[in-house]
């Protein structure tokens, strides 16, 4: 395995630089222009973000993709979305099939996705500080993953706001309590950190695939799948670090998506389990 450390660091610096340059611009744009009452046209909004049109957002790299993901939500900002159900054609292939999702599940999945991203950021931060990860290439990769998850969380927050819902900018408590905290507590070496990271990335990747087939609008589906493939890429690199098959199956499954108990509803987490307790047996005598 060879991940060039200098190159990763250079990329991280570039990402930081780009974020420093672009994110304030997006935030300012959101404040000034994407106010629902501002009456600014979609084309004008696209122009502000430096993209030619709504349909050609994804053209010039990560920063613009982030901008477009923001746009997907904000330029259509309204509490009630129009559900697209495939009945738009009147030709021979008329569809009567409705989407498996709903406006409620749209919001739930967005909040949950953001919470997973925040959990991943925290998990990588803790793992990197633990001293357990010692291979320079792995350190570099996990640092990059941490930064990318942070970007994903910010993008999802903007999308969530854009559909008139409240983002959830906190690490997912269910996964934290049931998976991450026990995993980090038990971690004794780099291999166990990699195993935990694999579980997290697999959960994230499959959750995005699930969302890609569940969201009720194509704008949301498009936006969420700017992120899903990146989690899959993380997963492959983690497999490579562990000498596992980097692409073990020809389709991304959804069986390991985040469980329903981890969902973030309109009122917050649907379930917060009790932290597992450590039972100690007093020594006899």
């Amino acid at each position, binding site marked *: 395995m060879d991940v060039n450390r200098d190159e990763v660091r250079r990329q991280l610096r570039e990402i930081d630089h780009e974020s420093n340059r672009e994110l304030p611009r997006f935030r300012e744009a959101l404040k000034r222009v994407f106010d629902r009452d501002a009456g600014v046209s979609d084309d004008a909004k696209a122009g502000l973000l430096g993209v030619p049109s709504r349909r050609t957002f*994804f053209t010039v790299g990560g920063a613009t993709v982030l901008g477009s993901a923001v746009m997907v939500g904000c330029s259509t900002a309204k509490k009630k979305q129009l559900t697209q159900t495939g009945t738009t054609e009147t030709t021979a292939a008329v569809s009567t099939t409705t989407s*498996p999702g709903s406006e409620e599940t749209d919001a739930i999945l967005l909040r949950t996705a953001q919470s997973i991203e925040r959990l991943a950021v925290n998990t990588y931060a803790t793992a990197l500080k633990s001293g357990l990860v010692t291979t320079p290439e792995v350190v570099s990769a996990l640092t990059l993953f941490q930064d990318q998850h942070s970007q994903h969380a910010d993008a999802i927050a903007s999308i969530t706001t854009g559909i008139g819902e409240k983002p959830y900018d906190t690490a997912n408590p269910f996964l934290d309590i049931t998976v991450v905290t026990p995993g980090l507590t038990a971690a004794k070496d780099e291999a166990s950190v990699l195993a935990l990271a694999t579980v997290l990335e697999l959960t994230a990747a499959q959750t995005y*695939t699930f969302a890609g087939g569940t969201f009720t609008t194509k704008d949301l*589906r498009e936006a969420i799948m700017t992120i899903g493939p*990146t989690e899959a890429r*993380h997963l492959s690199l983690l497999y490579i670090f562990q000498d*596992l098959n980097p692409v073990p199956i020809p389709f991304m499954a959804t069986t390991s998506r985040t469980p329903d108990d981890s969902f973030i509803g309109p009122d917050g987490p649907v379930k917060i389990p009790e932290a597992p307790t450590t039972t100690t047996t007093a020594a006899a005598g």
Partner: protein
Amino acid sequence: MSMRELRQLTERADQQHREAMNTIHDDLGELHLSRQDDEGVATRRNFVRNLGLGGAAVAFGTLLVPVAGLVPAAMAQTASGKGADIPEADMALVKFAQGLELAAAAAYVAIVAARKLDTPQTEAARTFGRHHTEHSAALAKLIPKDDIATQPNAKILAVFAPQITDATDADALMRIAFNLEMGAAATYQLAMGRLSNWQGAAAVSTIEPIEAQHAVVWGNALDLPIDQWMPAFQSSADALDPATYAAS
């Protein structure tokens, strides 16, 4: 919203996913990635190979699952062969994607046939080629029987075939494979923004991440800068636009 309502919503979504997308992906996922699959993981470990470039140690399993046998008969391909009930514009995109997958599979056949890759590289190329064949077969389930492409998209193949012929070494061939996979992932991202019906989007959502994973393997093996194969967001900038490459 009550927990019960929430569960009903998600259960409905899960159920429709499985019914419409068929359970092949989940079956495969469980077969390959289940935590109980220790034996399978151990088997994969036995196939650890070094791609020979950039010191990339990459394992390629030989766990092959007969995909056709896992596809439930009730999948979108109906007995009458009418395909899925999706809008015409979506169907055009699905058909394009199916031809793209056949072209990708054909490109890998040519890459292997060039006999410039070493053994593990060849194994990777064969594995990914099979993945593309399986993607094509899955997409074909959505297409009316009479419209299913049996030949690779000629315009796409025309882009890559001369490059493969002209490739002088393994690096050049892997670079072509990398560009092919990056293009495929970008094309599916483009499709995600155009598919109006969830069924096509659901299918694409299971395939797009895999193309991205293929790109990681080749990008890493070629020792390319990581920003070329590990972007923070998937772009459609390198997409093979259906308007340009539509099969005639």
